[in-house]
Structure formats: C-alpha cells, structure tokens
C-alpha cells in the first residue's frame, strides 16, 4: 500500500520539466523557442521615441517605428528584415575586428558557463555566456563560414529566422554586459561586446526597449535621462543645499553653466532626483565646498549616464559627444566625473577613439594637491574616487569616520568601474578613512570577480522586477553572508544604477541593508569649517550612532 501511494505521489508532483521553466531539456537548444510572457521581457520603445531617434541618426540605424507586441508572433517587421540583419552583421564584422575574433575563436571550454548571474539565478542554459554568443555565432556560421554553409546544423549553424530573432531579444536583454564571464575566458572573449552587437542588430529592425530609448531621447533633447529642464535641475540642487544647511549649518550656492570655471562636474542625473543618489550628491556638494573648488554644474551636460551604449554605438557617441561639446563651450580645463558605472566604461574604453582625444582640454590636475592624472591624458576626465583618494592621500581632508559608526559597510565593486576601468583600490581607500566598520564580501564575489546588481544596461525597469531579483541573487547572497556574519547594514558602491537597483535588490533579499554612494559617506565624515557644533544626523536625516537625533526621514 505504501508503494502505491509513493507511485501516486511521484506522478502527482510536477516533475515534468516541460511544465516548469518553459524549456524542454530533452530538446537541443536550437529547438527550444523563447516564450515571452509578462515579467520576462521589457516593454518595447514607444513609437514616438523610435521615430524621434530615427531622425537624429543616419538612415536605417533605428529601423522603422511601429507599435508591436512582444508576446505576439507578428512583430510587424519590415519584409526584408532578415536581409537587414545579415547585412548589418556583415558590416559589423568588417568594422569591428573584435566581433570577428569573438565569432571565430571560442573553443567551448566551458570556463564561462557558470559565471553569469543570469544563469546562476535561472538555470537557463541560454544564459550561459557561451550559449549567448552561440545565438549569434550560429547565424554567423550559416552566413559567413564554409563549414556552416555546407554542413549546416552539424557545424552549429542555423539560418536567421523569427525564432532566432526571438532568442536574441530574450537573451541579449538578459545580459547586463557586466563582463564577469570574460574574466574567466582564456581567450578573453568579451560577451558584453557580443551583446552590444546583438542589440545593435535588433535596433536595425526597431526591436528595442523603452527603458533604454526614452532616456536616450531625453538625454539627447534636454541633456539628461528624465528630460529635466534647466530650472528644475537647478531647483533640485537648491533643495539639496537646503537640506545640507539644515544638517550641517553650511550654506552652499553652486554655480551653473559658468564659463571659465576650471572644472566641469558631470554626474548621473539620478544623483539629482532619485534616492539614494541625492544623498551622494549632497556628499559631492559638501566636498567641493570644503575644497573651495572652482567648478560648475551644467544643465546641458547634466547626465553622466550613457544609455546610448545599451543600444547602438551611434547613440553612445552622440551622448558622449555632448559632454565634451559642453566642456568646450564653457571653456573649462578638465572634467570631473561623479560616481557612475557605464559613463566610465564609455569614457575609459570607447571615448578615446570614438569622440576624442579631447585635445581642447588640459590633462586633469588637482588644484589642491597638484597631482596630474596622466591616466586621463586622452579623455581629460577624472573619476571622483580618484580625485578624493588623492586628497586623502595628501592629508587634505579632515574626516571623522565615527560619524559613520551607525553604518557597518561593505563595498560592491560596480562592474563597469571594476572590470571596465580597473578601479578597485580608490573607493576602498576612501572608505578606510571615512568609515570605521568595513567588511569585505567573499573573495569570489568582489573586485574583478564582482557580481552584477542584475539590472544594468537598461534592465533596471519595473516590469521585469522578478527577473532582476533572480539575476541579482549571487550579489544579494554575498551581501546576506556579511549581513549575517558581521552585521553589515550598508552596501556602498560607486554607480548610480547600482544605487537604484541594489536598493530594490536589498529590499527583496536582505531587508535591513541600505545602499549608499561612497561620496555620501565622505560627506557624513567631512568636518567642514564653520559647521554646526554637533552633527545630529547623517545626510539622509538618519540618526548617528549614540545620538538621540530626530531620525524621522
């Protein structure tokens, strides 16, 4: 009798894999079709946005604007869409040598397979980096290699079909271009660049997402993602200055669009309007006031983020160019950049040959310490963490780390600054001087092996929140560990997307952990001349350790 019950139960529980993940394990990957359903895809860009951007770009780059439904089997593609994609691929193989190499040189060693956070959170084999690349390689082989043309599927080749296009849209938007996989690849294949190419090709037939393109359109038109107009930007910073005065007693009046300033400061606009970035912005404002820096904000170059880099290189170039055009117009000597992720990837890796070199500017030199940032000789743009670390190194900042004693901090290396520009020591150096209680996450989850927040490259949109939570699992899991072991309650980082998305990630996985920028912690610790005798709260009006302060925000 017991055995019969066992059999019954064995059947009743849902073990059939085809019922589970919408994947059928017994099938070959080429035969498994992507299934779009609410929550696993981003909304397509509005027709008006595609239309607007299409007019701003060379013909064809943006594809025909139209309303289309991701879940339907008719994406209203142009009749010759396959031809457009194959021609686009050919052009890019000729233009970008890296793509050609990446298409040819993978040996399927499997080193990358389990390094992707999307794979770790979903178990979906098409989220293995090797497979993500294979989605494009299979078409490349079919169209451009003899073996693929002759042997077809036996050689891992397949023609471009609607099923392939669906795969591309599904999985090139389940990659945050974080490049963790490339750290482990013995050939250095950069899956991020394969994803970038995949997205470019999708844009050629206007298969895209709104969360990327609307910010791009706004940045192109008004200078920042939100489309905030000059007066609003200025007012927002004034609000922050009011809060600073209330907290510290220091009155700050920053300048805007001031010609002849020595330095132009550019940061992600999220630092001006969204929590917790605004607290980081207060940190910048305090630091610059402390130094008496000759700098200006700009309402036109009011966005460090470059969502263009998540769509096509033409848009990336356009948005990057705006920052430099403004620097030239204002006649500044160099640019200081705030805590941003992909802005730095673009500046550090692409700007030099794409927009620059910016020879009309000077190599950044700290007016306080005299340090020349030779690493920015081409781009003329220095990272706030490099700048601040240099100040601390020269003993130029009076810091009281005990003002951050209410925080037990760990540091999340943002993918773009860690792997995209090799910045791993500077923020840690700053934290060591501004914070007393710091604990690192496990070695295989930080520095060059850092796990992505799970929502980069324009995937920080609400309609895929569940996807973001599973993609962010490895990061959250490491935070959970230091939270449980050391009582870590603060996750610091130097990226605006991180500040926004890790807040949601912590909200789900590790409630009780707040997300801060590094500059916010500097702002808390900085002892300003003429400040209030006792600082009762931190920059977000939170009570400090040992204070009975009013923490009502």
């Amino acid at each position, binding site marked *: 009798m017991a055995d019969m019950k066992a059999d019954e139960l064995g059947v009743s529980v849902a*073990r059939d894999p085809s019922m589970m993940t919408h994947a059928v394990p017994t099938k070959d990957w080429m035969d498994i079709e992507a299934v779009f359903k609410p929550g696993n895809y981003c909304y397509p860009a509005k027709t008006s946005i595609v239309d607007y951007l299409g007019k701003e770009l060379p013909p064809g780059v943006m594809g025909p604007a139209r309303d289309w439904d991701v879940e339907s089997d008719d994406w209203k593609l142009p009749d010759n869409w396959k031809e457009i994609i194959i021609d686009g691929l050919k052009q890019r193989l000729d233009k970008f040598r890296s793509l050609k190499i990446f298409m040819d040189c993978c040996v399927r060693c499997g080193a990358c397979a389990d390094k992707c956070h999307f794979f770790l959170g979903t178990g979906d084999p098409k989220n293995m980096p090797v497979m993500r690349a294979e989605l494009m390689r299979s078409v490349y082989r079919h169209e451009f290699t003899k073996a693929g043309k002759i042997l077809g599927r036996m050689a891992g080749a397949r023609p471009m079909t609607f099923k392939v296009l669906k795969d591309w849209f599904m999985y090139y938007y389940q990659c945050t271009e974080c490049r963790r996989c490339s750290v482990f690849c013995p050939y250095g294949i950069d899956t991020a660049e394969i994803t970038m190419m995949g997205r470019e090709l999708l844009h050629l037939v206007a298969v895209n997402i709104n969360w990327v393109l609307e910010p791009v359109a706004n940045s192109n038109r008004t200078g920042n993602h*939100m489309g905030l107009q000059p007066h609003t930007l200025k007012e927002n910073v004034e609000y922050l200055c009011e809060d600073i005065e209330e907290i510290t007693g220091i009155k700050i009046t920053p300048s805007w669009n001031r010609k002849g300033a020595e330095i132009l400061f550019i940061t992600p606009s999220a630092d001006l309007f*969204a*929590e917790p970035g605004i607290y980081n912005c207060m940190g910048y404002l305090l630091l610059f006031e402390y130094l008496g820096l000759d700098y200006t904000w700009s309402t036109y170059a009011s966005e460090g983020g470059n969502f263009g880099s998540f769509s096509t290189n033409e848009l990336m170039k356009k948005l990057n160019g705006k920052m430099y055009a403004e620097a030239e117009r204002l006649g500044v000597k160099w640019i200081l950049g705030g805590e941003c992720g992909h802005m730095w990837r673009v500046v550090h890796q692409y700007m030099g040959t794409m927009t620059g070199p910016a020879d009309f500017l000077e190599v950044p030199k700290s007016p306080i310490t005299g340090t020349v940032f030779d690493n920015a000789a081409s781009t003329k743009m220095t990272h706030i963490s490099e700048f601040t670390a240099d100040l601390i190194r020269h003993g130029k900042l009076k810091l009281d780390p005990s003002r951050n004693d209410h925080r037990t901090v760990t540091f999340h290396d943002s993918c773009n600054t860690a792997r995209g520009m090799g910045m791993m020591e500077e923020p840690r150096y700053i934290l060591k001087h501004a914070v007393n209680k710091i604990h690192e996450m496990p070695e295989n*989850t930080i520095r060059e092996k850092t796990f992505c927040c799970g929502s980069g490259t324009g995937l920080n949109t609400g309609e895929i*929140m569940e996807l973001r939570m599973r993609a962010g699992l490895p990061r959250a899991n490491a935070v959970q560990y230091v939270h449980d072991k050391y009582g870590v309650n603060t996750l610091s980082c130097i990226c605006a997307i991180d500040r926004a998305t890790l807040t949601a990630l912590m909200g*789900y996985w590790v409630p009780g952990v707040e997300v801060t920028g590094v500059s916010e912690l500097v702002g808390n610790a900085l002892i300003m001349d003429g400040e209030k005798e006792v600082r009762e709260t931190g920059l977000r009006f939170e009570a400090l350790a040992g204070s009975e302060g009013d923490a009502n925000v």
Partner: protein
Amino acid sequence: MDLNKVLDENRLVIAEKWLDAVLATYHKDGARFFKKQQDQFANPLGYNARTGLEKMVKAIAQGDGQEIPPELKQFIKLRAVQQFTPARALAFIYDLKPIILAVCAKEAGEVDVNQWLKVETQIDNLALMVFDLYMAARELIYKVKYDELKSGNAGVVAGGCPSGAVIRKHNAEKMELKVIRDC
C-alpha cells in the same frame, strides 16, 4: 521500530533524492551545475537548496520540523521569482513523502502507523509554512516595486512633464516632513 531513527540514519540519502527531485524542475544543464558546484557564493541556488533540504530532513527526522532553516527560506524566495506557477514552485515539498517511503520501504512495514502519520503531518505542516513564505515573498516583490516607483528611480518613463513631477514630488515630501516634525 522507531521511524525517526530510520529517517535519521537515511537522512542524507533522502535529502539527496529530494534535491534531485527539486533540481529536476530546472533544465538538465542548469541542474547538473547546481548539483555539482559546492561553493555557496558561486552557486547560491544549489547551496541553499542542498543545505536547506538537508537541514529540513534532519529536523523532520528529529520530529522538529516546525522551524524552516534559513537556506530553505531563501530558496523559497527564489522559487517565488522564478516564473513557476505557485503550485509548481512548491510542489517539491510533497516529493518528500514518496521519497521517504521509497528509501524506508524495507522498514516501513514494521513501523507503527501513528509514527508515519506524525511524519506526514510534519510534511503537510511544512507545505503550509512554505506557502506562507511564498506569499510573503510575492507581497514583498510588490512592495519593492512600489518603493522603487516612490524613490523616483522609475520616473524616467512616468510620462507627463518630468520637471513638474520632480518639483511636485519634492514639495510633497517637504510637506510630509514638516507634518511629521510638527507632530
């Protein structure tokens, strides 16, 4: 014969079979990795599933299945965001019954039926507790979405005039703050 003792002796075999049943709900290439990689940071899903299930089996074997280990709690949270239907996300709890019966088949006949009932009741209770956890996770997801909207990070595609929206939001917050302080 003491069923708890039998379960305790076989708990590792039971936990492994239970883990296999859970991992069978993923693609085989994913499941293979989740089972093989032992590092808890390189493989959070596999680690939480394996450790959570092992601890749970041990607790049930000791007649102490009222506490769900933290690893299993995390795993349930993950199942709640993995595109399973609620029933399919949690069906694996009931897998434990046939697994225990199969592993302990030899001894089964000699065990008093009341002992079986106690074990079954623990598993049924576990299913209910896990259901609560699952629902709490789903509710949390909606809270996280709401909080993100409120934080301003979602303002990019909110529509309307963003400049006006930011000013309105800021003014509203100032008012809220003032009210709180005045109280």
